[in-house]
């Protein structure tokens, strides 16, 4: 099950009209251009997950020596990528961002919708409003929709 509606969060934020959604779910996000989840609305309905091996979600926090340890990627390009990602602000899975940090249980940046994965199950549970079924690293799930 995948969410069938995708919204350009960044574009909507700039309109100043708020987000007409019940929940915000991000996977492998390097940042959402805000300092904490409450700036997006009810922090209890902001859900962020990331694989522990996803370089995109972790880009802002890459150390200098990481740049020379990526096979096939020139250090200069990696540095530019890291600099670009740092403009997104803190990753929503960072400690202190707030909201709910759901368990992905997948690898890399391209497996968040892998069938039968913990990632996909958790996103489906949020979409269905069955929040207490979501497995969390941190955060507090709100009451279920029904």
């Amino acid at each position, binding site marked *: 099950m995948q969410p069938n509606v995708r919204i350009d969060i960044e574009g909507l934020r700039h309109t100043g009209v708020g987000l007409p959604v019940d929940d915000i779910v991000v996977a492998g996000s390097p940042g959402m251009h805000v300092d904490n989840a409450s700036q997006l609305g009810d922090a209890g309905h902001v859900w962020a997950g990331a694989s522990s091996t996803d370089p995109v979600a972790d880009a802002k926090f890459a150390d200098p020596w990481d740049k020379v340890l990526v096979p096939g990627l020139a250090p200069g390009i990696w540095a530019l990528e890291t600099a670009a990602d740092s403009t997104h602000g803190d990753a929503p899975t960072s400690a202190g961002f707030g909201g709910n940090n759901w368990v992905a249980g997948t690898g890399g940046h391209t497996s968040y919708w892998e*069938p*039968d994965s913990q990632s996909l*199950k958790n996103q489906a549970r949020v979409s269905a409003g069955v929040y*207490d*079924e979501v497995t969390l690293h941190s955060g507090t799930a709100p009451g*279920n929709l*029904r």
Partner: protein
Amino acid sequence: MTPTRVLPLAATAATLLIITACSGESVDVKSEADTTALVQAQADTIAKLVGGPLENPSTGPMPCTGKRGESSSDIYSIQGAYNITTPAGETPRDGIARVRADWQAQGYTITDDRDLEPNRGIIEANTPDGFSLSVESPATEGFAIFVFSPCFTRP
């Protein structure tokens, strides 16, 4: 065997492993119809344990990546999704308890087992032959059942 002969042997073995992984030969051959029947059989067993008929059945193929990273357009898995209404006079946890006991007796590997309020729960397991099973009760009125087959190659 001298070290000078071990190295070429090891290199040959590694090459053979890589060829096997890329060709998909390590994924068993089975038709979609046969795999769907196996998924249905797993769901039927769960329905008997829970104590109600399967409702809203939905089965179909999806892409699948094998345990060794095998992937091609011929490698697939079958997913089955169903609902079951909670039997009269019971709570979802009653059905989940019977499922848990059966799966433990079968030697399945329980991968998730949580109680949720009120009287709800989730239980998931992997079978020795590679099926992934999930029984969860998003509401006290019933269950969502998911069955995933392992990867197979179409004949």
